[in-house]
């Protein structure tokens, strides 16, 4: 077996050193009834690389890769072009095969990356500080609510109908088990929520999404003030981080916590994971922040260095009193994020965001030209909602047969609701001919 360096003669000599008769003998603490005397018969034997590649390759071939056809899906996961440097760099063994940087002297690479990542996230969101990443945007959202509960010592969260329903569900699941109230609003496809009016003395936070899951853009400045006036926090969720290159950042609107999905930078679609949750907040809340943090310090020679810090909040030390049970971050995805953002820099990010928006504007204009199609929201970043004269789910399925991935039906996200709405996203990867093919196919099937 190519991964196992011990030879039979090694095993014999090591058993002799140990003084055991056989490897099985080393398992003598296992009750005999539960010990198996050989490989599990219902599973196959080992395979060579060639055979594994064939088997997994045949599975992969049964999926329609988004890059192999015009593709307009978003709703929390976006297909962007990732520079080849990113994937090359994250595969360096020194990054890929390192563990959590518990020994900072020989982990300054990972640690400096995390420090830079935290700074990038803080800058992008317009917040004071950020952590070293969470599992994904949805878990960031739920952790943000729990953090707001801790800070305000209140237990009621108000979740906007513009929040991605999966984020909502992760939060309400947490609410059910950890014991807080999550008030959810109906899908906000057409605007008109009065969130400020719902905030009361029990409210720990209001959670909004920016742009919303329907692609709508709101200015949350007034909402932030209303929340804070009543002792509640405003949590802003962002699922398309590229938007932060063009839109006024949540921090400038007064957000207390920003929970975001960072997949758009550096990370492929991956059928939904692994992704990288971003988490940023105001400086005054830093000790209530969940997750891993990297901080600057000095070494014995006085040189600047980095360490994991504030771990007294964590489960290693506080055990049942920890701010959360999380003990990993999304390290490699955060690295990919950070490298991509470093490559973009100020100009590149602004340009990329502007380009995404322009592509979406183009697409909206083309789709608006299709008979029977109505673009629902006038303002958006790179994703918007259209109203179709037929159920969107069927249209999407029909277009998929033609190898066009048309968007996400609202009814997939909100079962039973808004069957005629379709969420459509465009990014820098969509060409004019992609868009024309989509518009034309749509015209044909409607």
């Amino acid at each position: 077996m190519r991964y196992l360096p011990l030879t039979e003669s090694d095993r014999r000599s090591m058993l002799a050193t140990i003084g055991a008769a056989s490897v099985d003998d080393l398992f003598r603490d296992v009750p005999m009834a539960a010990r198996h005397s050989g490989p599990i018969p219902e599973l196959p034997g080992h395979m060579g690389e060639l055979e594994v590649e064939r088997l997994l390759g045949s599975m992969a071939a049964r999926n329609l890769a988004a890059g192999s056809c015009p593709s307009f899906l978003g709703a929390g996961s976006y297909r962007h072009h990732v520079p080849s440097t990113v994937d090359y760099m994250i595969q360096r063994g020194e990054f890929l095969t390192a563990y959590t940087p518990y020994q900072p002297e020989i982990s300054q690479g990972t640690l400096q990356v995390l420090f830079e990542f935290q700074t990038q996230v803080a800058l992008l969101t317009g917040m004071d500080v950020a952590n070293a990443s969470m599992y994904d945007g949805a878990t960031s959202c739920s952790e943000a609510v729990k953090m707001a509960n801790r800070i305000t010592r209140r237990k009621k969260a108000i979740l906007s109908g513009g929040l991605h329903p999966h984020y909502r569900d992760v939060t309400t699941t947490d609410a059910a088990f950890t014991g807080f109230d999550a008030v959810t609003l109906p899908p906000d496809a057409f605007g008109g929520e009065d969130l400020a009016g719902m905030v009361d003395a029990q409210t720990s936070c209001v959670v909004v999404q920016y742009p919303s899951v329907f692609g709508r853009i709101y200015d949350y400045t007034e909402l932030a003030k209303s929340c804070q006036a009543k002792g509640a926090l405003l949590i802003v969720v962002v699922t398309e981080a590229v938007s932060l290159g063009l839109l006024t950042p949540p921090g400038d609107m007064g957000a207390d916590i920003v929970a975001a999905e960072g997949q758009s930078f550096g990370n492929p679609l991956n059928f939904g994971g692994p992704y990288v949750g971003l988490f940023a907040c105001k400086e005054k809340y830093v000790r209530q922040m969940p997750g891993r943090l990297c901080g600057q310090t000095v070494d014995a020679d006085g040189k600047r260095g980095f360490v994991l810090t504030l771990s007294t909040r964590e489960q290693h030390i506080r055990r049942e009193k920890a701010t959360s049970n999380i003990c990993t971050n999304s390290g490699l995805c955060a690295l990919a994020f950070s490298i991509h953002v470093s490559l973009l820099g100020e100009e590149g990010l602004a340009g990329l965001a502007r380009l995404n928006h322009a592509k979406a504007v183009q697409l909206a204009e083309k789709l608006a030209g299709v008979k029977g199609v109505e673009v629902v929201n006038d303002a958006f970043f790179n994703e918007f909602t259209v109203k179709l004269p037929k159920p969107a789910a069927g249209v999407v399925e029909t277009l998929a047969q033609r190898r066009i991935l048309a968007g996400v039906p609202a009814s997939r996200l909100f079962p039973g609701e808004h069957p005629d709405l379709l969420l459509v996203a465009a990014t820098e990867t969509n060409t004019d001919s992609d868009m024309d093919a989509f518009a034309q196919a749509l015209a044909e099937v409607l």
Partner: protein
Amino acid sequence: IEEPLIFEQDSPGRCGVDLPALPDVGLRLGPVKPRGSIGLPGLSEPQVVRHYTRLSQKNYAIDAGLYPLGSCTMKHNPRLNEKMARLPGFADVHPLQPESTVQGALALMDELAHWLKALTGMPAVTLAPAAGAHGEMAGMMAIRAALEHRGEGARKRVLVPESAHGTNPATAAAIGYSVDPIPATAEGRVDLEALKAKLGPDVAAIMLTNPNTCGLFERDIIAIAEVVHAAGAFFYCDGANFNAIVGRVMPAELGIDAMHINLHKTFSTPHGGGGPGSGPVVFSAALAPFVPVPYVRKDGDRFVLVEREGEGGTAYGRMKAFHGQMGMFVRALSYMLSHGADGLWQASGDAVLNANYLMARLNDVMTAPFEGPCMHECLFDDRFLKGTGVSTLDIAKALIDEGFHPMTMYFPLVVHGALLIEPTETESKDALDQFVTALRALAERAKTGDAAWFQAAPRFTPRRRLDETAAARKPVLRWAPEPERLEAAE
């Protein structure tokens, strides 16, 4: 050469990407203004490549040497798995594509589930959790959901051994349970009698790690399962150490109700400096109905992704934005297929053999608190350092200068100054012998009382010992332009 922060390498106007031309259309941003400066630095591509290359060179990694971090399981990460995860048919698939266009992805999830079930003997599995601790959460939520379903929501106590990973009590507490510690025997295992005494009608579950964090198999585990079940409670097993027994011992046959499996440990998906993980949870028949959404169901020839259950469904909610860590699933399945049943059998055997070999080679110069055989990791305490002025930490730091990553220190908490060593099955005998030679020399040197030498270690690293206290006292968590450098307030 020192490597500055990217922010210190900024030159405005420089950029590491070139973008296609911007279509000539206006903005449609509604009520929000385009933002002004972001504050990101401008670097060219060559600078970015060099920056991350240099940073990477400041890291230790499994590719470069032995990484015997007990309980963390740093084994070889095959590049085949990386290649497979990057097949466009897996990596370039959107989670919300129509089911008809992702049958291969769903088939892969189903196949992974099949392997996990076959390897544990358990009838059900959820792939949703994003990491081991997330799996613990999913498992404990299932237990609570099942208890509530049968009207026993009043059970509020969870028993956790003192040697447990910190995540165990943290998880139990997070979902509203009180944590009650179980003491250990002198042999480093759960005290069955003490456990029995703690059981009662208010106990929801026991959370046990097996093999435990001392690297020992819980000999009484079947009896433990029996008494726990007899008391109406569930048996949650922390599967972090499943790699010691995979293919050789079936958790189902031990009486376990739920167990998470760290794909990054047992099935070698890369740790990547701290994540991403992936923590599927296997369930007994009693818990099988209580899973989070989404999950994959086979419906004739087709695979269906159940994102929401209908009437009568017992799924208890959602853990994550999408369907789980697909990229990790591909890697783990690639690892499983590569090993096969025979390779996994051999791998767990070799992991245990390697650990026992280290134990045997070090036993005379270091002090083991418990008798062997151990499983995949061997535990020492700091009695051998008594009176030397050298601490467990000092030994670890000195080991760095010998070219090795240190073992896990000060965990588990049940022994004083723990040193927990896990070599894994992918280390050769030569590598173990080199490690033994280095560690024996340090142990012997410590006994000669050269404490100052130890305290000055490491010497040959990119940084020497770092001041963690200062970092925590006045946290600096981000770069800020001088002079208004932000420093988080106390």
